């Protein structure tokens, strides 16, 4: 189990786009994952406000959901997104780190179901939530 978690962490850190976004895996295991992304001016979506683009938040949520699937005890190996829906509640506060938490709440032989939330430093008001279905790939 420990090896699998270590492997998942290495896998996430080996993703070129996760590196480009500056993603950091802060927790993983038993179908749950937490990833954080420090504020980066390259990811601004509206130069007048300095707010991070929704697309960068989507990329984080997708990565986090995938990590949650791979860490699930019943998942044999890799995964790919089948579909992902994202609801945007509010703009992330400029200058703050964004943290996403994902839970793989159900898994079958072929499909994993995942929910995730994105938060900035105000943990009471989510920035975005996601719900998706992922493939379950063999080793």
């Amino acid at each position, binding site marked *: 189990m420990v090896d699998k978690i270590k492997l998942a962490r290495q896998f996430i850190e080996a993703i*070129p786009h996760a590196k*480009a976004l500056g993603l950091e895996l802060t927790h993983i295991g038993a179908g749950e994952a937490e990833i954080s992304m420090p504020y980066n001016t390259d990811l601004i979506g509206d130069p*007048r406000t300095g707010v991070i*683009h929704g697309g960068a938040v989507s*990329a984080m949520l*997708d990565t986090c959901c995938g990590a949650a699937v791979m860490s699930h005890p019943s998942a044999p190996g890799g995964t790919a*997104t089948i*579909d992902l*829906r994202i609801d*945007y509640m509010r703009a992330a506060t400029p200058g703050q780190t964004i943290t996403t938490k994902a839970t793989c709440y159900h898994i079958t032989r072929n499909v994993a179901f995942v929910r995730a939330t994105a938060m900035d430093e105000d943990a009471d008001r989510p920035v975005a939530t996601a719900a998706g279905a992922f493939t379950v790939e063999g080793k």
Partner: protein
Amino acid sequence: MPRPRPEPMQVVKQRRDAALKALVEGVPYIRFLDISFDRRGDELTGVLNFDDKLIGNPFLPAIHGGVTAAFLEVTAIITLSWAHLFPQIESGEVNPEDILNDARMRFPKTIDFTVDYLRSGLPRDAYARAFISRSGRRYASVRVEAWQDNHAKLFAQATGHFLMPQPRVTEG
């Protein structure tokens, strides 16, 4: 009454291209992903210029699902903004250079966005086109499709809802 003479082609093209350039190049995240837009009249096609940093699975390799989602979302927002701004750019109400400085100009805000992943994104350029299903005063519904080598074989599609920028109410 004689019809007014149409504007010279260069004038029309220069105005439209300058407006599109201002809209797209002013956004850091669009530059980060290196997305550009081809324009034919008022019709836009998003182009995701491939780079290794867009890879999500280094073993296949394949474009990151989050990049695909972001590319589709950027194409939807730019297409929607462009449709919203186009009449004002054409009438001369909005100066292309002022698009990103003008406080009245706002991007539509994403309410929700759902992406279907149909195939893995190959490590090469991708294209996307957005279709505005409905655009009202407050809300808009947009469908986006993305392909690579063959337009008939989409690798992803999405639908989303957007909150349109509201005109500022001037009190007085």
